């Protein structure tokens, strides 16, 4: 009998406990006003990874700031890459995916509390533009020498001169790269060694100046490589060598299956759905930067952040139109994408939500050597839940209030503003007193319904 009671009690308790926690639910609506693109973060790299089964197309953006002749890139790759597996990507596509998936600010305007039927008109605001970013290494010229390094392949793709190297010893590879003019940071051989021993190859690129001039472009175009390997990872250890401190990586991962998460670190959602004061609109980028930094510190600097996860064929609210099939193809989508190109940007109310077999996950990883010892390993999941970093701004009704309900409304707005100030302080770590100073209270309230008001029109 005792066992029976104990069993039933524990069963019951477990069910009750589990049913009482609520998953936060909110309606994805509101109007998009602005976003925080990847450009606001210094030292940031952006990559697009299109992945299905064991096939990967990796697009690396280059916004190399120095002289083009100094540009060089060394990326460990799981398999040897041939000429036909390399392509020049489109920078605009990275911009597009950034704009499509960036954390966003949405706004609501209160209706006049004295009018119940008419609703206030809300204007959709303009969108922020954005520019891609990248990480890179620098190079000079010198003569080659045999140091246990094999040039598996060497070819040119437009303005890029590409070498596929394999090596026996990291010291040899480091020396080879140095002799050949690649300025490898100190300590590189220690990091290169594990890649060599895992039989990985090195994708090395520098610029053919003549070709570059003939393109007439003033910036480098992204490099795109396709390979087949069960390794679904991104090497970040090499990049940590030449960075001074923390680096940001924004990865747009496209998959026909669903969300992609990091398998060897925690993947944490950025804060979302928070109501924040109106003035944040003036500098949403600064707000998001502080919010991200604070979350990063709260998670002890060792997690990957999920900023966006959505079916690419729709969005709500949209920061820009969903990428077209052509744009997705340029981003590396090699599976048949059935998304509808004639997409209607969703608005309020009932609507048809298009769906496709391409899902985008935007992961933002801020990493430093001390916290990220291992390269990032990804895994696809069948999770098609939508997620976005979304922050809400409420505009009070600032017209003349002429009814008794107004008193209550003014109080309600004051309370809400107080709460919004607290939310902002909590999210960003900004001083609450400074925040409160910047909030514009609702003072326009003049009770006009007492019956003693002047009736003349020039009052």
């Amino acid at each position, binding site marked *: 009998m005792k*066992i*029976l009671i*104990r*069993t*039933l009690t*524990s*069963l019951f*308790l*477990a*069910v009750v*406990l*589990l*049913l009482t*926690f*609520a*998953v936060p639910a909110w309606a994805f609506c509101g109007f998009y006003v602005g976003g925080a693109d990847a450009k606001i973060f210094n030292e940031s790299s952006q990559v697009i990874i299109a992945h299905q089964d064991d096939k990967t197309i990796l697009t690396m953006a280059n916004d190399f700031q120095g002289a083009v002749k100094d540009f060089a890139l060394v990326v460990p790759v799981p398999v040897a890459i041939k000429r036909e597996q390399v392509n020049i990507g489109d920078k605009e596509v990275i911009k597009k995916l950034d704009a499509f998936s960036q954390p966003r600010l949405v706004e609501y305007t209160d209706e006049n509390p004295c009018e119940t039927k008419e609703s206030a008109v809300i204007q959709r605001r303009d969108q922020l533009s954005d520019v891609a970013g990248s990480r890179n290494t620098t190079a000079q010229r010198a003569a080659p020498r045999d140091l246990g390094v094999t040039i598996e392949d060497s070819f040119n793709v437009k303005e890029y001169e590409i070498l596929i190297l394999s090596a026996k010893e*990291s010291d040899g590879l480091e020396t080879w790269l140095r002799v050949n003019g690649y300025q490898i940071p100190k300590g590189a051989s*220690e990091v290169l*060694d*594990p890649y060599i*021993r*895992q039989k990985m190859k090195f994708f090395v690129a520098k610029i053919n100046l003549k070709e570059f001039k003939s393109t007439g472009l003033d910036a480098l175009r992204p490099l795109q490589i396709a390979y087949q390997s*069960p*390794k*679904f*990872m991104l090497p970040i250890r090499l990049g940590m060598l030449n960075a001074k401190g923390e680096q940001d990586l924004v990865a747009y991962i496209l998959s026909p*299956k669903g969300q992609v*998460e*990091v*398998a*060897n*670190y*925690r*993947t*944490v*959602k950025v804060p979302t759905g928070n109501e924040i004061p109106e003035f944040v609109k003036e500098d949403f980028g600064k707000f998001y930067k502080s919010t991200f930094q604070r979350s990063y510190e709260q998670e*002890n600097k*060792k*997690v990957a952040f999920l900023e966006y996860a959505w079916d690419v064929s729709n969005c709500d609210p949209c920061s820009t139109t969903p990428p077209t099939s052509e744009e997705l193809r340029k981003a590396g989508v090699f599976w048949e994408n059935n998304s509808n190109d004639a997409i209607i940007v969703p608005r309020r109310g009932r609507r048809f939500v298009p769906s496709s077999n391409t899902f985008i996950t935007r992961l933002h990883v801020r990493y430093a050597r001390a916290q990220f*010892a*291992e390269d990032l*390993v990804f*895994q696809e*999941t*069948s*999770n*098609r*839940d939508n997620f976005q970093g979304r922050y809400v701004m409420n505009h009070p009704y600032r017209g003349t209030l002429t009814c008794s309900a107004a008193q209550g409304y003014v109080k309600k707005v004051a309370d809400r503003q107080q709460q919004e100030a607290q939310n902002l302080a909590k999210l960003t770590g900004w001083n609450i007193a400074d925040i409160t100073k910047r909030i514009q209270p609702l003072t326009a309230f003049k009770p006009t319904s007492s019956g003693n008001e002047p009736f003349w029109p020039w009052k």
Partner: protein
Amino acid sequence: MIKSLDPRVYQIGFLGLFLLVGIGARDWSLQPMVVATAIIGCAVNQLIAKSIFQPKENPLPSLQSSLITSLGLALLLRTNHPTTMLLAATVAIWSKFLFRWDDKHFFNPANIGIVAVVTLTGDAWVSPGQWGEDWLYFLMFLAAGSLVLKKVGRWDTSVAFLASYAAMEAARSIYLGWTWDVWAHKMMSGSLLMFALFMVTDPRSIPNARSARLVWSVVIAGATFILRNYYYVPSAVFYALFIMSPLTLILDAIWSAPKFSWEKLRPFTFNKTKLEA
């Protein structure tokens, strides 16, 4: 009074605690319906299967085992659909009655449930990174795990698994020239520790004799190591355990020892040898 408590009660308590910690502090977005489906699905299946296969026994005590299985599923298996979780619960419970040899089941129920739905439905996944690599969680699992394992007497299995896996990863780290923090990062994974303390030690489905268990743990560690590092399977531990589970039968045949029974652990019921699934 406390001494007479079934170790399964501790296990239920700890797994329930981990679930709440995961939801509260580790940013898990579990659907209450999916979790409830795991608990109810396992319990109902347990009662039905028990009434068919062992109609003469009181089915109620075995609900503790089904609750452990369901909490294991809720902690490890991720899906957005309750039906997928129901399938996992059904496979888990029925495996105890269908895959039997010499009156002993040899698949870990939660494990076979997870492997079945992840491979067959394409609608479920396991998040190996979900616990992170914090000391706090490491200590929490260690404290809870050692308490339960001390009662069940299966600490040898956890230690053998973790030690052999750590040694293999260390050897690989040295060979590749990785710094030690890479190894530490791999070993500090909360998911690995939870598996080592709470799944690989299930006394009912693993070998009975200590020597057999030691061999078994090392084999599973080896399979995990190979799947993870050479086949790049992020949730390698679950597949390793699944593939190696039938080995229990062979190991039991080589090293004979009395079968594990929850009843035997309790004082005053010493002579009862009947097994419950």
